[in-house]
């Protein structure tokens, strides 16, 4: 007889669940990513659907309106940002740098030769190295876009459609899921699903608002400071902000390096550093207290490990999704254990 009260049984169950999840994710990789993104979007947009329902619009119609809006936003976004992105990516992949950068690199090289020549660093041609790095980085992004163009188009079409069905049918699926639960665990399941729904909804919506706010502010700020590639760097810093502790730094460092390299003086880097310091303060003092009403505390070591696993399994997207997914799993486990305590299962 299996007893849920037995700690070793619980540990075994959690381990089995985690292993099954990892195997499934590995087996269906790309599909799993699209489903996770669609599910996260459906969760985030649910309050909007509820508001529409309160105005007498059916859930199907509300999901349809959201699908059409997102499709329109994707089309407008692609038409608006592709030319700007293209110019910035071509500029990056050509490896060219400004006269100021060249001057700064020449000065830096002279310092290296004079002070650290004995280490063999004086022989390094910094201009060539920077051009090579920029060209290879830009080429990597272009290669990623070109080779994955089918995948990107497929994702842009599939994710909104999956999201539509997740929104439209979530209640029916939830009810169907509860219907198959044995009578003894029926109320427990309802209680658990309700609590998880609330916690996850708050957490994911908070994270989303936070990432969008920081991404938008960073894009505007970097654009105003004249930092090149701000269309790439701004949204990247918003997404990186999803990763607690290291995210704000990881999001700011590329902008800082590019600002110094392109302008050729440390002052430009100082402006970018001040911008990100201001963003971090605004995030901690205003955005997070307003958006993340009930945050899910994740241990720094856990964040680091899940980011590495996510990165190894699914690359950059896996790395960014690893934090909300870990938050999701933590809420599921914590709420399950807490709710389980209130029931007398034998």
């Amino acid at each position, binding site marked *: 007889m299996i007893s849920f009260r037995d700690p070793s049984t619980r540990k075994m169950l959690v381990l089995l669940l985690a292993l099954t999840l990892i195997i499934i994710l590995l087996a269906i990789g790309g599909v799993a990513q699209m489903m996770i993104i669609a599910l996260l979007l459906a969760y985030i947009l649910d309050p909007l659907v509820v508001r529409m329902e*309160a105005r007498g619009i059916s859930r199907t119609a509300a999901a349809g309106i959201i699908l059409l809006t997102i499709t329109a936003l994707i089309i407008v976004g692609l038409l608006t940002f592709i030319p700007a992105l293209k110019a910035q990516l071509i500029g990056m992949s050509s490896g060219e740098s400004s006269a100021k950068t060249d001057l700064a690199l020449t000065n830096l090289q002279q310092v290296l030769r004079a002070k650290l020549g004995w280490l063999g660093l004086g022989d390094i041609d910094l201009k060539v190295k920077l051009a090579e790095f920029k060209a290879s980085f830009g080429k990597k992004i272009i290669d990623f876009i070109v080779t994955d163009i089918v995948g990107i188009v497929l994702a842009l079409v599939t994710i909104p459609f999956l999201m539509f069905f997740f929104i439209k049918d979530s209640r029916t699926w939830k009810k169907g899921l509860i219907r198959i639960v044995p009578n003894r665990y029926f109320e427990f399941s309802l209680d658990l699903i309700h609590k998880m729904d609330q916690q996850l909804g708050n957490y994911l919506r908070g994270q989303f608002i936070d990432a969008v706010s920081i991404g938008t502010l960073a894009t505007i700020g970097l654009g105003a400071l004249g930092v090149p590639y701000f269309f790439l760097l701004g949204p990247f810093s918003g997404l990186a902000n999803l990763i607690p502790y290291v995210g704000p730094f990881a999001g700011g460092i590329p902008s800082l390096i590019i600002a110094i390299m392109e302008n050729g003086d440390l002052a430009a880097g100082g402006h970018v550093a001040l911008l990100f310091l201001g963003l971090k303060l605004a995030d901690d003092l205003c955005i997070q207290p307003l958006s993340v009403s009930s945050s899910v505390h994740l241990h720094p070591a856990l964040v680091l490990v899940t980011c590495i696993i996510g990165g190894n399994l699914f690359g950059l997207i896996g790395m960014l999704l690893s934090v909300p997914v870990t938050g999701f799993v933590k809420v599921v486990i914590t709420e399950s254990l807490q709710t389980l305590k209130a*029931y007398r299962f034998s």
Partner: protein
Amino acid sequence: MKGLFVKKKTAEHPEQNEEEISRLLKAMPIFTDLTRRELAAVARILHEREYQPEEVIFRENEPGMGMYILQTGRVAILSEAGNLQLAEFGDGSFFGEVALLDAAPRSATAVAKDKCRIFGFFQPDLYSLIERNPALGIKIVLGLSRLVCDRLRQTNQRTYAINAALQQMRQTPQ
């Protein structure tokens, strides 16, 4: 196209006629003020369950999630402390409604005496309905409040009667 923008009326209980569930609901004091359309909306969020004789529906001291509407069968409400049967419910009756308003643990255990077909109406679904359709939500909460007031009035009357009887006993010479 019209169906896309108007809330669907189709039943989500293929095994049960929505009309039949609406009739069952209409007979209950909580839902008497609801229109046919509103009754159908409530019917859609109910959870249909079947219990075998002697099967426990809910246990005393476990969290209460909502009320149960008994379509067919008999249910006994038991107090575990004194091993007493507090009440028995039959076809068309309902129990556990206080859990819709209050998150306190169940005060008694409910056990099926026969094979029962029951509809569960739960707090999270009521809250979600209030968010989506506040007018309907208020009607249901008012219905619940009336029921609770009625029960309170009855309890008060019983308390007065018991107090009066006690006073009379005290005044009567031994």
